[in-house]
């Protein structure tokens, strides 16, 4: 009964949302026509052209890391404070690996170690090419972290050097803010893209955006790695 009611409530909510979405007045049709919109200039870019006023080749990136970079900074902070919380609750001074009750066999060990490099490289690639291809700092960082996870799986005594992650995390975060403040001092606005935009499609283009994405990737990767470490260790009683 309870389940049924819950289902009913969820369905009701869904219906309400769909109905109210149909009431919209501005985007009542998902048309391709973007003329007259602010996003117009992002739509008609060609590979190899000079970049418009702002923006990398990947439009999503231009939204995430430039247009709403401040929100992204906020989201980084959300992740940061979450990992702090995990460390606060789970982390202690003296820690050892959690005994999960299984020991990796030979195949798992070797296979994981082989995969580690590949995944790590993928993560790095995704991060660095965030302004050109789908992906970017968040998934890239998560990939880096999942490669760390593999290491943890491969060896039940493995501990990452958390101290190093801490430094990475801190420096990456600080640099993000500092880039923002630099924008404030060099070019009037906080987080403004004050570097040259370059040519669409080049690796070194779109100003500070690749920089920011790399920082995000590092930060996300190190933070999630830290979280994983905290989850997989326990305090020595």
């Amino acid at each position, binding site marked *: 009964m309870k*389940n049924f009611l*819950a*289902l009913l409530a*969820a369905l009701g909510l869904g219906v309400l949302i769909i109905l109210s979405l149909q009431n919209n007045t501005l985007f009542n049709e998902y048309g391709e026509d973007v003329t007259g919109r602010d996003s117009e200039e992002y739509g008609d870019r060609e590979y190899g052209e000079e970049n418009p006023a702002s923006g990398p080749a*990947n439009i*999503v*990136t231009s939204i*995430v890391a430039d247009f709403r970079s401040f929100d992204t900074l906020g989201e980084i902070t959300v992740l940061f404070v979450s990992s702090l919380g995990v460390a606060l609750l789970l982390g202690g001074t003296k820690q050892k690996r*959690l*005994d*999960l*009750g299984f020991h990796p066999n030979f195949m798992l060990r070797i296979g994981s170690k082989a995969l580690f490099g590949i995944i790590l490289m993928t993560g790095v690639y*995704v991060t660095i090419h965030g302004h050109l291809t*789908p*992906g*970017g700092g*968040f*998934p890239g960082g*998560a*990939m880096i*972290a*999942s490669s760390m*996870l593999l290491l943890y799986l491969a060896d039940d005594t493995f501990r990452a050097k958390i101290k190093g992650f801490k430094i990475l995390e801190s420096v990456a975060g600080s640099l993000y803010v500092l880039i923002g403040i630099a924008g404030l001092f060099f070019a009037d606005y906080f987080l403004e893209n004050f570097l040259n935009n370059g040519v669409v499609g080049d690796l070194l283009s779109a100003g500070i955006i690749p920089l920011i994405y790399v920082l995000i990737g590092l930060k996300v990767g190190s933070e*999630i790695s830290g*979280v*994983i470490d905290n*989850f*997989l260790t*326990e305090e020595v009683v």
Partner: protein
Amino acid sequence: MLDNIEVLQVLEIVIAVFMVVLAFLAINSKSLIKAVMFLSALSMLSVIGFVVMQAPDVAVTEAVIGSGLVTSLFVFTLLATKKVGVK
């Protein structure tokens, strides 16, 4: 013959229905580990959904975080808690 777009729209609806079902199962399953698996499957489906809706960026992120990392963290936590329960 169905149009490309129409196929995708049908797919969207199928995915949506499956997602709802999976969410329901995840909430209601007695075994926690099963619930985690349902959740993982749910986010995998949502990845497909995102791809269908032409949002590769989101899809990549969801794939890595939603079905990869989060699931593994859940599993580890379950393993760890089980241990305390055995004691």
